């Protein structure tokens, strides 16, 4: 499907210098003055740029060295919302440490379920506490406002990013995950419920189980098995004894 371009939020500036949000660059990051090109060299010639490009804004993608916010929407109303019903702020923390409470998982969010009212404007702050990439990617939003039907924050390391989106009025459970290979599978999955949601999603740590759960080694069955077998044996012996007694008794027709 072709990527919708309706929500082109910003003018397409291929390179924007943003000294304000410039990273604390290393000392040697300062680019050296490029040597004058020797005569007779074919064009084009690569040169280190004079300044550092640290911020990109383009087609709904707002990106810098800390990460990216995709499809931010602070104003455009979903068709079914007459006005913004309210503003909520949600802070999501992501990291390995949040998976410690779920044995068998490796990455997670501080919470795996969020709630918001219909037509609310959500200002979402995503804090990554690991020195690796994490994402908060929400699917199922209206395509006419959010290309690929998603709102997405990605933080490239220990940093944070904030983005805003407006929810439609529908009662619905939105699917949220980190789409780095194996991060969702290993626990980084959640659900955002609007007006209570329309059910739960699979494999939400602490909330919903797995369709294909793992099989674990079964522990020592000795005592329950011995007890069960002993009980069944006694019961069986008792029954046999009782039947035997019944069979030995002469029936009424055989009575002498």
């Amino acid at each position, binding site marked *: 499907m072709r990527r919708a371009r309706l929500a082109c939020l910003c003018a397409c500036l291929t390179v924007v210098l943003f000294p304000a949000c410039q990273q604390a660059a290393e000392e040697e990051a300062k680019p050296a003055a*490029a040597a004058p090109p020797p005569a007779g060299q074919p064009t084009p010639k690569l040169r280190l740029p004079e300044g550092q490009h640290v911020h990109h*804004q383009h087609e709904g993608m707002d990106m810098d060295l800390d990460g990216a916010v995709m499809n931010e929407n602070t104003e455009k109303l979903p068709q079914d919302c007459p006005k913004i019903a309210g503003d909520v702020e949600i802070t999501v923390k992501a990291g390995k440490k949040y998976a410690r409470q779920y044995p068998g998982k490796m990455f997670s969010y501080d919470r795996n379920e969020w709630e918001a009212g219909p037509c609310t404007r959500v200002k979402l702050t995503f804090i990554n506490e690991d020195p690796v990439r994490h994402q908060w990617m929400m699917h199922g939003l209206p395509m006419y406002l959010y290309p690929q039907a*998603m709102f997405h924050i990605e933080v*490239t390391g220990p940093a944070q990013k904030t983005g805003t989106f407006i929810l439609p009025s529908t009662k619905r459970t939105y699917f949220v995950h980190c789409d780095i290979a194996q991060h969702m599978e290993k626990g980084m999955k959640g659900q955002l419920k609007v007006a209570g949601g329309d059910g739960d999603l699979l494999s939400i740590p602490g909330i919903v189980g797995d*369709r294909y759960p793992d099989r674990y080694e079964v522990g020592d069955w000795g005592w329950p098995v011995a007890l069960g077998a002993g009980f069944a044996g006694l019961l069986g012996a008792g029954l046999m004894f009782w039947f035997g007694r019944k069979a030995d008794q002469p029936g009424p027709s055989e009575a002498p």
Partner: protein
Amino acid sequence: MKIPSRRTLTIVVVVVLVIAAGVASWWWMRMPPYEPAPPTKEFALGTVEPPCPDLHPSWRPSQVIDDVTIGESLDCEPDNPALVAAVVKGTNNVSHTTLMDSGLAMDAVVLENDRDGDGDPDVVHIKLEVAELNGRSPEVNFPVPTYSIAPGIQPGFWTFVPKPHGMATKDIYSMAASPLLRMPSPTIRVEAGDTVRVTLENTHYLPHTIHFHGVDHPYFLDNPLHGEHRGNDGVPETSHAATLPGESFTYELTPRQTGTMLYHCHEQPPVHVMMGLMGIFVVEENRPDNWVQTINVGAGQVRHPAAAIKERYASEYDLLYQEVDRDLGDAIKAANDPRLIGKATTSGFDITKASSEYFLLNGYSFPYTIRDSLIVVEPNQKVKLRMANGGDDRSIAIHTHGHKLAITHYDGIEQNPSAWITRDVFDLAPAQRLDLVLDTTDDGLHSYGQGVWMVHDHREKALTNDGVFPGGSMSLIVYKPYLRENGLPTLHGVDLKPFFTKEFYQRKFPVWASYDRDRMLVEPESVPPSLMGALSLAFLAGLALGGVGLAGYHFGRTRRVGR
């Protein structure tokens, strides 16, 4: 009922046996009537994938992106020119459009600081993640994200990935891995004398390291980014503990010597190297204005060769041969819990009993190798091949049809040209590298002329996908007149269609079924069960049962009498 006497019974048995023997001898001695053998079975071809999906024809021609010249690449699946531009110029220096098209994160390849003032950056900071391909999901029962080495073949892999941005899949509608997430781990390419920092951002759920094999690197680092004295060799047992999930570690090196080297994970190498965590590491000569292609995703053709290579060669290819133990790869599909996978890939795995089912060249097995790993040449050219063995067998034996190539370097060390050896089978022990010059001069020695010439491992099992030929790491040297517009060679042999079905590699479509015009070679139909046969079988079974019963009866009777 009166029980027949033993004597009567014996007579009956003997008579029956004699009659049976008579019938059998008659059957054997007679002239058999002609009965036609069953006809040849019909086989329907499964869903045929397009041999070349031809998704990006515009990527093939030579082009300039953000002042980076990207050479022509005529493969069916050429490398993304935006990606090449981003890793030549640095993800910190390219335009937004190029960065977005490359799929890389902004800090994936940071190039800066022309220390020696020779017109190219001398400080390189590469960030690598670890991605799992064809892994387990607790929600669906197919491998995610999906990466096929050949039709329908999806072994589990771990691979180093230049730090991407966005999704791990191609798009929201697909479970196929994004183009950056593939085998093998990418080639890293730097200039001698560059300060190279490689940050391992461990996005995976098991510990990993990076060991720079053959690349000049200090054992200890005293003033690294972390600000401490620590190991830099990537060996958990000697140098520094492995990088745990969700953590990162920066290696630093300033290689003084050039050559074709390797890098690989040194945590549990019998498992982690075999799972795919190995790539080629090339140190190029230091030249002025030498912007090297820092990353070569999927290895293969280098679309922006370094200055010293361009002087001497028409083109350059990185060729990494690997092999795959399917059972090891399956370990990551059997569980989702990292503890269970960790156990299955350590104490639960014994490499001394392992075997390889699949053989890869640059991450693919035939037929996919012809989509992305052709060596495209013209007459009277010199082409540089950097060949490495990432497998575990005693050696590989790469044979070039139609050409004899000279070995210029062993393990990155240049030989005196008078000592160059020219041959047509190249044996490489595990982790060895050869630099080869492919000379397309048609002199009956270097080249036998234009054509479509195979390049394949002459261990014949490496010509198969789990025993099914044709497969494995074979590729082709293709002369340009024999290359079609979509990057596939003009082939003059059999129809390739069956090879682009998963049924062929599941042994469901016989090898000759697609071109046996006379229908005299393909498998016969099964024979309908014959009534006579079934009856005879039943009669014999009944006879045997009766015999056993009779024997039992007599045994019991004898005992009773004896008592």
